[in-house]
């Protein structure tokens, strides 16, 4: 019985870590995988999703609809940003990363100025249940399902929709896609928007579980960064398996030494791993497969 409850606890922790890693990283990974840009304002799109969701809930919308609103707003802001700023820097990918950092500073501090240092949350729904004396939150299971569902939807988008197929064509051979009449600039814009929307979704989903502060984005970015670094450029071959592996590492370290040890251990593990697999899991898997 003790062993079973221990196992359950570990699986719960792993699933929780997996959900967190997938949801916080997939927006970053979509933009990086398709456009080669690391969006340093990723945390601020999460912030945007969280704030909009919470405001919508307090205005009386049910949580699922509120999360959807948060996702859409973040996505639209992302598309706008791509049109106004990022678009001019495609020839200079490294500079476009620095620019997103400037945007991140503006948003974080702007939020602090306009909305103050904290926004009251809405509380976690669904309550909790107990197994062998330990409490577990039901909402955490919702988050795990949401992570799996997000991956499934992304899979459908990239393999079954016109946008997904054109997007993959654009990424692989931009000039040929252009020559075939694909509106590549629209594709880039939509891709950036999708990445931002996924960040917004992450913010919306986690908004009920945490205190909303203007710097909350940085609570997500480290995990998002390391998942993308280990995963490499492909969401399905890289990000998802990377999240799974890192989730085990993180859950193990967290239950052994606490939350912070989980995070530090994750980072150290990643730095050591890249010494061995410079092109991330994607590179490793592709090399094995081809």
């Amino acid at each position: 019985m003790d062993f079973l409850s221990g196992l359950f606890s570990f699986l719960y922790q792993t699933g929780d870590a997996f959900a967190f890693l997938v949801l916080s990283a997939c927006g970053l990974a979509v933009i990086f995988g398709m456009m080669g840009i690391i969006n340093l304002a990723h945390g601020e799109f999460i912030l945007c999703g969280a704030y909009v969701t919470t405001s919508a809930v307090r205005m009386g919308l049910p949580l699922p609809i509120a999360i959807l609103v948060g996702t859409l707003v973040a996505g639209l802001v992302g598309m706008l940003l791509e049109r106004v700023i990022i678009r001019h820097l495609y020839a200079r990918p490294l500079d476009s990363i620095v620019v997103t950092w400037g945007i991140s500073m503006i948003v974080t501090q702007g939020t602090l100025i306009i909305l103050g240092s904290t926004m009251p949350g809405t509380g976690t729904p669904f309550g909790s249940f107990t197994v062998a004396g330990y409490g577990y939150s039901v909402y955490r299971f919702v988050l795990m399902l949401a992570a799996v569902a997000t991956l499934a939807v992304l899979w459908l988008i990239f393999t079954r929709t016109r946008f997904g197929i054109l997007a993959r064509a654009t990424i692989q051979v931009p000039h040929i896609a252009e020559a075939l009449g694909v509106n590549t600039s629209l594709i880039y814009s939509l891709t950036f928007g999708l990445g931002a929307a996924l960040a917004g979704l992450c913010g919306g989903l986690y908004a009920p579980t945490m205190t909303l502060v203007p710097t909350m984005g940085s609570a997500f970015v480290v995990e998002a960064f390391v998942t993308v670094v280990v995963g490499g450029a492909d969401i399905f071959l890289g990000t998802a398996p990377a999240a799974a592996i890192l989730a085990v590492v993180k859950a193990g370290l967290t239950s052994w030494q606490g939350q912070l040890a989980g995070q530090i251990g994750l980072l150290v593990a990643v730095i050591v791993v890249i010494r061995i697999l410079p092109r991330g899991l994607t590179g490793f898997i592709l090399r094995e497969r081809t």
Partner: protein
Amino acid sequence: MPRGNKTTSVLKLLEGPQTLGKGPGFWSGCAVVLALACAYPLFADGYDVGNNVYFFNWVFMALGLSLIWGYGGALSFGQTAFFGVAGYAYGVFTINLGDAYGLTLVSLVAAVGLSALFAGVLGYFLFFGRISGVFLGIVTLSVTLVLERFMSQTAGPEWAIGSARLNGFNGMGGMPSLTIPWFGADIALYPDVGLYYLTLALLVVVYLALRMLVNSRFGNVLVAIRENPQRAEMLGYDIRRYQLVAFVIGSALAGLSGVLYTAWGNYITPSSMGMSAAALPVVWVAVGGRSDLTTTLFGTLLVLAGFQYLTIYGSQYALVVMGFLLVVTILLAPSGIFISLGSFFSRGLRRRQARESI
């Protein structure tokens, strides 16, 4: 080779292909600026002079980032990690060792050494793992963010090294200022004229030494790697080593900034390694012009002065302006304001000459 000859060939490296500014005009300009900087305490209040040492403290980190990013082409977004490690290390060393017998100076060297060692270990994994530009940026940024979070939770009494309490989110204080041992009575360098001159002298030495470094063979290879790493490797250079050495030197300079800052204010907090703190060096260096030491030096001082002025209205406003400044610079003047303005005016001049000659 005769000794004198060697000295002149080393001095020749002060000018070269990797640095702007040469000839008597440039150096007399430098001499004038230096003379003004030296004369400043004569006309100002000691308290103000001490406060303004603050500006110099940061320039070392900026010059280090210029070396790593501007010259070496490696995006290191986490220089504040080395700033923080060295700052905390200085605190721990000096609180335990005290300020007699020149031990603060030993602590300075040890703290900078520790940050260099940390950079060496981290850099070994990154560069020998052949981490590409973008990933290098986000891994180094992650390192500084995790360090910030780690130091923030060290509030409890169990987090102490010897008699030095780390003190969590509120930061560590109470470490002694730099103190020079002297016959009779030691000279403690509180924020005042003495510290000003010491920091200024350090700055001049570091600036000139870096000029020589980037114009040396090492600097040649470093810019070659930035321009075309594959070609550089195929000329027989082990590019990983060169990038690692540049990273360690640049990070040690960030460490020096950290020590000077901590000794100056007798204080350091985890937020000095946070997201906003990490962004600021990037702003200074990008705005001034990262690919040259001189533009970085003056750009940093200029942006810092602007930032200081704006903090009157609150640091969040100042940070918003810094964000805008970064976005606008990258969009409109990617090589920095000085070089962009320079080429703008020289284009205008040439156009006018062309018109007049018609």
